[in-house]
């Protein structure tokens, strides 16, 4: 049974999953999205504490945003409805909304490319260190 309450961790996972589906619609995403979601959560845990708190609150607001219309949080929406909400915030005039999505886009895409092309990084690294 899914909890109807907003959840920071589930919302971050859902944002990462949605961004990856938008970028790579033809690929199987669940495993890679989960790995990247874990990375995004770890990066969030390491960020400056005053920012961490602000982003946590804003992310929970984002998760709860769909309640009035859909009756459930963002992380429980269908992929299409998630994508709609993400786009709505990404292009909002209220600067804080695109800033939140931009933050998650940056981390998610860096994580995505790092997962897909980890051989690039490891290759150069090996040659430089040994």
């Amino acid at each position: 049974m899914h909890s109807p309450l907003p959840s920071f961790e589930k919302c971050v996972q859902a944002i990462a999953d949605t961004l990856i589906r938008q970028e790579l619609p033809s690929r199987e995403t669940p495993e890679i999205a989960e790995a990247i979601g874990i990375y995004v959560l770890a990066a969030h845990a390491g960020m400056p504490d005053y920012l961490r708190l602000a982003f946590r609150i804003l992310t929970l607001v984002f998760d709860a945003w769909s309640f009035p219309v859909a009756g459930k949080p963002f992380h429980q929406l269908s992929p299409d409805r998630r994508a709609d909400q993400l786009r709505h915030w990404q292009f909002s005039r209220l600067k804080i909304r695109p800033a939140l999505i931009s933050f998650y886009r940056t981390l998610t895409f860096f994580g995505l490319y790092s997962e897909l092309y980890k051989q690039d990084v490891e290759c150069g690294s090996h040659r430089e260190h040994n």
Partner: protein
Amino acid sequence: MDRIVNTTEPVTSQMTADIVVIGSGPGGAVTATLCAEAGKSVLLVEEGQNLSLQSVPHFSKEELLVKYRNAGICIAFGPSKIAYVEGRCVGGGSEINRGLYHRAPEHLLDQWRAIFKVGDLSLDRLMPHFVACENTARIEYIPGETPPISTRLRDGAARLGWQATEAPRLFRYDGAGKSGRKQSMSETFVPRFLKAGGRLIADTRATRLMRSGGKWCVKALHAPPNGPSQRIEISTDRIFIACGAVQTPALLRRSGLTKNIGNSLYFHPMLKVVAQFDGDVNNPDDPDPVHQIREFEPWFGMGCSISKRPMLGLAMANHAGHFAEIDQHWRRMGIYYVQAASGRATVRNLPFFRDPLVRVWQNEADLGKLADGLKRLAEALFAAGAVAVYPSVPGYPVLRSMEDVRKLPATFAGSDGSMTSVHVFSSCPMGGNDAICATDSFGRVRDADGLYIADASLLCGPTIVNPQGTVMAIAHRNATHAVESRFN
């Protein structure tokens, strides 16, 4: 993960040393080494983990999580924002940077002497300290051909009649320059420090400094990643603070020392572009690119960046369809930057929070410089054979010709988060000018007997060039002075 067992004695709640050095980056490692070799009992305290150079791949997401402060997410706020990075591990910034190396230019030292009244500072006087550091942390040029990403920038500059040079690196190349070993602090000065009898404790964050009974007390939290946290106190005669240009003023201000501390932090704000060329330039096996355009210094400089696919993804995230572009063309793509010396920031602690707040201000002229630099960079890349240039600035279009470049705005908004910096310094400048300097000409904090600063905070302003060489040489100079004057 390749974690080094680093303590030469157990961490206990009460510790003592003649000298405590807080921070093991280029400034701290050099200072600790010289003090230990002078026969002092030295404890080097590092907030981050003690990891070997090869513990995680360079420029990987894993490295961001374990070797960077705040997982690589540090932001200076203001009308224009700057995202910056700092190291947080044994070796500090030297572990995570590319090790591009320059000695401070003479005109810069002359300026510091004139404005900040730094005594006994000139290129001649600093030269022995540069050389001494370079004897331990070796500087080399790529022995063979430089990588195509690098030579393209050099050739583009040459076609425009601009000066471009190859920067040496803190690196020991093997054979034809395809491999080698970076000369970070964990590979050079930290082993020398341990050999001289110095003690190192990692995973330990200094929270406050207190003075009582003629002694200093460092209050700290030892928090290993896989063990319980422990509060410790270290009693000592002298402290060298080398936590970096943001954390050093934060620690001093938490300890009640505020005069000229944390009021003048500077960055090298940077904008990046991805250039797509008419032929292959990007091979993951290539050594790091090393050419820089110096024609427009001291206004701004240009250079090449690591261009592996994750970095390309990050640099192109603002452009629609970036994944397909990178997937198809990454071998023809390279990342380039323009960086200026601009902006001024403050460092302040916030009540109830651990991390300090950095606020930055840049004026119209600063932002205009970056906008001009971006156009010049694109011009050099088109001269080098680029067929497209993708600015890493939200809303900026793909540039396909000089006509497109000329249509770019004359100034740069700076509020969109596209400015980054890998260099931070000058938050506690040294010198004899009491009105603006936090320390005397050799890093001694004013009105605080036995307290020194030994990192990039001391630099009097932006260096334009990569600052690590200057940080090490200044630390070597000041530590030598302290030892020779018997710390009086």
